[in-house]
């Protein structure tokens, strides 16, 4: 190019931005320097099939599925100037052998071919090798439907096997931990689980033994895969080698509906997908959010979901008559609650809200407190040691939101006053939602001493047993709403199921109680959760313009709390060190 001295070449303009020019399947794009080839192909929207590569784990490059053809400009002879075409790019000389896209980084003027004879042949070959010893287990395999091997064998596999010999026998149905089953015959040696346990869970109990075709994944002798993050290996496993005992043989994945939501077991608010069929929850899996939970979630939280079909669910409003709870209808119970509350003065009533409630429900609780002109409203703190991974010290999912909505720096600050008031008898009525008071440091005597206890729960418990009126509420998987996690991130819950029988969304119940007290007509209350969310965004300055309709699935930070999530800190460090892509 004659004017190469006067005009800047693409390589120079890219270099100024820290980028490089690469050609993917004939198209030139710019990607950041140091990008892995597989990520560059992803940016170019070209799929590169892979099994062992995972952006959050190191890249050993052992599945060989991501082979692509690579080319670079030829090295100039001594004294020869590189020549550029009319677009300013050098000619690419294609290498005769493929390279793995997952562990190689891009370079200036590099060419990548994700299609073509060489690449297709490589994939077909790798696929055939992977399937040689793979059992024909698909009809009984839980992974079927979301199996990498199934997907890519449709694209790159053969219709029939050329392998006439006997397949290698390996251990099947091995209980390698309390929650996980291993099938070694299905394993394709991608080592994702091994790397996860080593690098993320930091408890390297898994490893390969034997050699060649007899290579077997196993657990260290005398140890178990009982880490609280162990079930993430099941999600990571691209085939059905690792399966979860909880979900094992429960339902084929293609019947399940995915609902993105958030975990409500601790303040981290891990992003999750709730998998349901009909009105039953079958499993909960983590959803990637690099600012909250990366790709992982703890087993303890994953397995503690409340399903509408559980036996301990409350399904109808209950009123206690002569010490026995009787089922009643909504209109009766709401009217009874309204009448009963009106018997008391404002300062005789305390409201126990909960850090497990959504912002919308807390706002209704605040409105209720204002209607009753009581300032005795508090949430109950639940703190336990953090596991220095994803589980926050704060086991309430919405403490930050409660502080914001109730307008208190510490939403638990009134709790001591409420406890004293109940003890000395100045508080005679309590309205409690989603909190078992007996668990929260109230004594049974205190509760028995109350003249009125109204509660909203989704499952039975001792406080519900002691309540005069019990309203059946919705579980976290059954409601829409927003919560703010410990890092100040506003996130959204979505309803995956509908509440069982007569149970209703909590905010509707509180709204109806308020109407019963004030005697207003239903039109004066918010008619839908979206309308309520709109009212909140108009009332709380920090939530201005944020309603349920426009909170993204990944949420957004609205408060600066200076809290960080230990696992993410380590991940950031590893990305900075270039160990993982991130």
């Amino acid at each position, binding site marked *: 190019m004659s004017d190469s001295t006067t005009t800047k070449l693409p390589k120079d303009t890219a270099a100024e931005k820290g980028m490089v020019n690469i050609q993917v399947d004939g198209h030139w794009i710019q990607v950041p320097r140091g990008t892995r080839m597989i990520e560059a192909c992803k940016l170019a929207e070209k799929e590169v099939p892979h099994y062992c590569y995972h952006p959050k784990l190191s890249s050993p490059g052992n599945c060989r599925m991501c082979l692509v053809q690579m080319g670079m400009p030829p090295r100039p002879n001594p004294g020869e100037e590189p020549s550029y075409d009319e677009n300013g790019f050098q000619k690419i000389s294609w290498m005769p052998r493929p390279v793995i896209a997952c562990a190689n980084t891009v370079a200036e003027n590099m060419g990548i071919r994700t299609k073509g004879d060489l690449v297709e042949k490589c994939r077909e070959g790798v696929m055939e090798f992977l399937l040689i010893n793979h*059992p*024909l287990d*698909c*009809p*009984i395999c839980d992974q*079927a439907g979301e199996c990498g091997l199934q997907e890519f064998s449709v694209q790159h596999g053969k219709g029939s096997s050329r392998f006439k010999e*006997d*397949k290698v026998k390996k251990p*099947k*149905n091995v209980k390698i931990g309390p929650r996980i089953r291993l099938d070694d015959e299905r394993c394709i040696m991608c080592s994702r689980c091994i790397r996860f346990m080593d690098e993320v869970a930091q408890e390297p109990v898994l490893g390969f033994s034997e050699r060649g075709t007899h290579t077997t994944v196993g657990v260290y002798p005398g140890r178990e895969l009982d880490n609280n993050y162990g079930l993430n290996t099941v999600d990571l496993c691209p085939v059905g080698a690792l399966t979860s005992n909880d979900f*094992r*043989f*429960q*339902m*084929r994945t*293609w*019947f399940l509906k995915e609902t993105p939501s958030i975990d409500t077991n601790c303040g981290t608010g891990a992003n999750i997908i709730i998998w349901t069929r009909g009105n039953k929850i079958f499993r909960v899996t983590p959803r990637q959010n690099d600012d909250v939970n990366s790709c992982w979630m703890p087993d303890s939280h994953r397995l503690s979901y409340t399903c509408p079909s559980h036996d301990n669910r409350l399904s109808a409003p209950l009123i206690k008559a002569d010490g026995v709870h009787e089922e009643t209808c909504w209109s009766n119970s709401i009217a009874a609650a309204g009448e009963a509350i009106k018997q008391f003065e404002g300062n005789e009533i305390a409201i126990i809200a909960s850090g497990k409630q959504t912002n919308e429900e807390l706002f209704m609780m605040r409105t209720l407190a204002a209607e009753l002109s009581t300032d005795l409203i508090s949430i109950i703190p639940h703190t336990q040691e953090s596991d220095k991974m994803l589980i926050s010290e704060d086991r309430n999912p919405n403490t930050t939101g409660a502080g914001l909505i109730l307008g208190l720096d510490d939403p638990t600050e009134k709790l001591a006053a409420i406890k004293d008031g109940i003890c000395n008898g100045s508080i005679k009525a309590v309205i409690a939602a989603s909190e078992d008071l007996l668990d929260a440091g109230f004594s049974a005597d205190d509760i028995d001493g109350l003249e009125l206890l109204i509660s909203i729960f989704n499952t039975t418990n001792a406080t519900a047993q002691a309540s005069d009126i019990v309203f059946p509420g919705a579980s976290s998987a059954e409601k829409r709403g927003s919560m703010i996690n410990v890092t100040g991130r506003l996130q959204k819950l979505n309803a995956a199921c509908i509440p069982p029988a007569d149970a209703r969304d909590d905010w509707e119940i509180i709204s109806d109680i308020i109407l019963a007290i004030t005697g207003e007509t239903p039109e004066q209350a918010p008619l839908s959760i979206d309308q309520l969310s709109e009212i909140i965004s108009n009332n709380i300055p920090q939530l201005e313009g944020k309603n349920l309709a426009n909170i993204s699935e990944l949420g957004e930070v609205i408060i600066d709390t200076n809290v960080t999530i230990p696992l993410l800190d380590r991940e950031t460090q590893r990305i900075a060190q270039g160990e993982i892509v991130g």
Partner: protein
Amino acid sequence: MAIIKIKRPQLTIAEKLYLPAVIKGLSITLGHAIRAVLGKTPGAKRNFNSSGMGITMQYPETKWDDQLPDYYRGVPALVTDEKGRERCVSCQLCEFICPPKAIAIIPTEIESDDPWAKVEKRPQVFDIDMTRCIYCGMCEEVCPEQAIYLRQDYAMTGLSRAEMVNDKERLYEIGGVREGLVNKWNEIK
């Protein structure tokens, strides 16, 4: 495109009167009636196992069960193989493919002390709602384990909706044993 003009057919007087055509029809019917009474309907006894009173079969006194072709699609049922193993592994593909959603399966794990524990999975509940079934045979076609077949039975009756649901036990009773199927869960496996 060229327009083709069609000329109306010219009817003869006999055709315009209609009566000759009516009489022709009646005479065919009458001819069949006479032959039926005389027991001379061609193939009635031999091919259709009828009473001889014409081609009409006197169902249910007479049935054409032995005339059913092999490919006849009757009641779907589960089969066991010659080793007595229930072939269904509850992969739920039939439930998925079933157009009227007649099939409902709840899978379960085979206990480790069971002789077929290596199969790992079997149906705990397998219901086919015969008020929904349309006898399309998709379940048989989709089954990867050769476990479900449409049998020759067609007279499926019941006095209530619940009775019309074939449960697992009933399905194995209808299906019976089928020999010579692919032995996938063999000794090498």
